[in-house]
């Protein structure tokens, strides 16, 4: 036999013997194979759950002072993280000091709060309106209510306790240990109280004083997973002009400028300014004449608004002019009032008007009187007077509510000539159907200029009408441009 076949044979014999040996040991027992590694019975297995992997922190966190405010707000903005999911949240915390304590001031879902939601701070044509989160942290202004709340809050109590603790620790640091031990219980008690307060539900509102430096941090959260906080500092400042209302301011200044310009020109060079005929005011003279001929009184019925309403100011103007006309004829004239301040002004107006016309004897306090401050008591009171005294002419000037029809229907029933003027839009249909003449809206305001023909007042009307013309042109231009897809025009008149 050659060497190679002999080696092969020996290998085969060895493998066979080894296999037999192993199989012998494997099948030497009855039953299943024994376990190679014996396992102890009744042993507790500690399952170690790996900690949740933290979320990635926000990047490029920016902080700005909120524009056009009183100095109690700031804005935080950051790009939307690549791994953001709708179920995640953002937690915003604030502190006066970088070391804390940090107070939660806001929290929001990841699917909300973008730059697009803050049109005052970020212009409409910014490219990142939907790709960046932004939140305005608007703290309560330093009001009495808030300061009371803050005093009672745990936050303030914690600060006070910490200060006390620090004072005690500072005072005992140079003492001997035996002396320090005297304070040990007190110190321990204070520390426990601080811990309890900090663990209690936090006050979520924090005072943000203008011109002070504050720190803010943003933490992402998804269930138990939190991101490391990213902080930034900012100083909120009060602004002296609200640029969000710039368009409003420009229009107001333009209107004021136009009015003052024309009034100035009228003073220098009074000219005959044209004003269109207002039938209701033209008929005032006829109404007074009619009442004089019939020997019946004239009633002037004020509206329900008080002296702060422009329609009441306008009606008082008209009252003065009508009184002057009435003084010429000497007709009985009664003025009803719903508001005591309007009563005082009306009495003064009528008295002065009679005085100007040289007829102070015509004035009686009882003729300019207060009826009631209650709407329907006023209406029924005046109605009763109309039914009893049967005036020939009734003037209604001012702001009216539901009682308007009660008054005018009664007057129409009595056959009186009725002239009304109101800026109350909802009552205009009732006046129009029941009165002989009705001044609508701004015709009431123009009445004082119309009746007096004072160049200054007429000039201010001219300025007002010019402004109205400009606004109409602007509206038409806006309609055309926005229909044509010119977007900026829609934002020019945006109000914030």
């Amino acid at each position, binding site marked *: 036999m050659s060497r190679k076949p002999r080696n092969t044979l020996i290998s085969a014999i060895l493998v066979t013997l080894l296999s037999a040996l192993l199989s012998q040991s494997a099948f030497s027992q009855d039953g299943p194979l024994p376990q190679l590694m014996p396992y102890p019975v009744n042993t507790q297995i500690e399952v170690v759950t790996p900690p949740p992997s933290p979320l990635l922190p926000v990047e490029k966190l920016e902080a700005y002072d909120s524009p056009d405010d009183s100095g109690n707000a700031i804005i935080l903005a950051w790009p939307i993280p690549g791994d953001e999911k709708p179920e995640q949240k953002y937690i915003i915390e604030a502190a006066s000091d970088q070391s804390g304590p940090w107070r939660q001031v806001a929290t929001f879902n990841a699917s909300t709060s973008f730059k697009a939601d803050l049109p005052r701070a970020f212009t409409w044509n910014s490219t990142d309106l939907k790709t960046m989160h932004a939140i305005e942290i608007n703290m309560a202004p330093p009001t009495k209510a808030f300061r009371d709340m803050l005093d009672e809050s745990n936050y303030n109590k914690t600060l006070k306790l910490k200060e006390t603790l620090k004072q005690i620790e500072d005072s005992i640091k140079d003492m001997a240990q035996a002396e320090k031990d005297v304070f040990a219980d007190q110190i321990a008690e204070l520390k426990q109280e601080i811990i309890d307060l900090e663990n209690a539900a936090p006050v979520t509102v924090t005072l943000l004083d203008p011109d002070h430096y504050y720190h803010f941090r943003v933490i992402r959260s998804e269930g138990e997973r939190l991101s490391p906080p990213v902080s930034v500092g900012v100083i909120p400042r009060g602004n002296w*002009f609200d640029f969000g209302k710039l368009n409003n301011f420009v229009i107001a200044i333009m209107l004021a400028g136009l009015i003052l310009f024309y009034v100035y020109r009228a003073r220098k060079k009074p000219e005959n300014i044209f004003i269109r005929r207002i039938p209701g005011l033209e008929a005032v003279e006829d109404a007074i004449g009619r009442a004089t001929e019939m020997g019946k009184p004239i009633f002037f019925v004020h509206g329900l608004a008080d002296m702060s309403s*422009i329609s009441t100011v306008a009606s008082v103007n008209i009252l003065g002019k009508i009184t002057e006309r009435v003084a010429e004829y000497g007709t009985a004239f009664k003025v009803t009032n719903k508001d005591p301040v309007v*009563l005082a002004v009306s009495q003064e107006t009528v008295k002065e008007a009679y005085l100007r016309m040289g007829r102070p004897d015509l004035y009686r306090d009882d003729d300019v009187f207060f009826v009631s401050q209650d709407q329907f008591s006023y209406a029924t009171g005046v109605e009763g007077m109309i039914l009893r005294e049967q005036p020939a002419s009734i003037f209604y000037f001012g702001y009216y509510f539901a009682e308007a029809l009660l008054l005018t229907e009664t007057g129409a029933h009595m056959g009186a000539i009725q002239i009304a003027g109101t800026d109350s839009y909802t009552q205009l249909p009732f006046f129009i*159907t029941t009165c002989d003449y009705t001044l609508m809206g*701004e015709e009431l305001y123009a009445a004082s200029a119309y009746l007096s023909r004072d160049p*200054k007042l007429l000039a201010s009307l001219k300025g007002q009408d010019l*402004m109205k013309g400009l606004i109409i042109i602007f509206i038409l231009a806006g309609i055309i441009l926005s229909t044509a897809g010119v977007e900026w025009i829609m934002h020019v008149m945006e109000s914030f």
Partner: protein
Amino acid sequence: MLFFKRQLPLAIAFFFGLVGFFAQYIPHHSFEMLYNELISWVRLLYAFALILGTYSLLRLHSKRIERKDAGYGYSLVLWAGFIVTFAAGMYNEGRGFLAGQADTGMLMWIYDYIFKPAGATMFSVLAFFIASAAYRTFRARTPAAAMLLISAIIVMIGRIPIGDMISEHLPTLASWLMEVPNAAVKRGIFLGVALGVVATSLRIIFGIERAYLGGD
């Protein structure tokens, strides 16, 4: 004396008018504090107006009683009502007028059983007057009046459940009338009124309009 009747009120109107105007555009906290203070003071004026009105009313009726004018019995009723209600309010079920208002007692009885039903009755009178006006004065004398009446009828029927029963288009038409022509006209009038208000306010602030002082 003229200074207090003319110059001083004009100066006050000018100063506070400008403060009120700029308050809309200056958000700074220092200006805001000034404005808040002014607002608190203005609110006091409303309370004083109540006292002034009460005095004026009582004075008028006491004169009528004194002169025994026609219908002076009603003035007596007014005085009696005022005294009883005032006394009940001051007494406040023994708690005095400085304490919070009591839930029961004479004042509440007067309010619940006299004032409330009387007030509701007064407003209900309006329904009858509207009906009277609808029949006697709502005439389609001109094409504009005719349009007004037709619109009124559509809206009156369309806004109530019966409108839905008559036709499903009626409520839609009524809503359209309210939301389109009505809103358009309201805006037009509102724009003019707003300009008029601003112009009149400016005239008052700059002293061009002085009728509110009782004449020129």
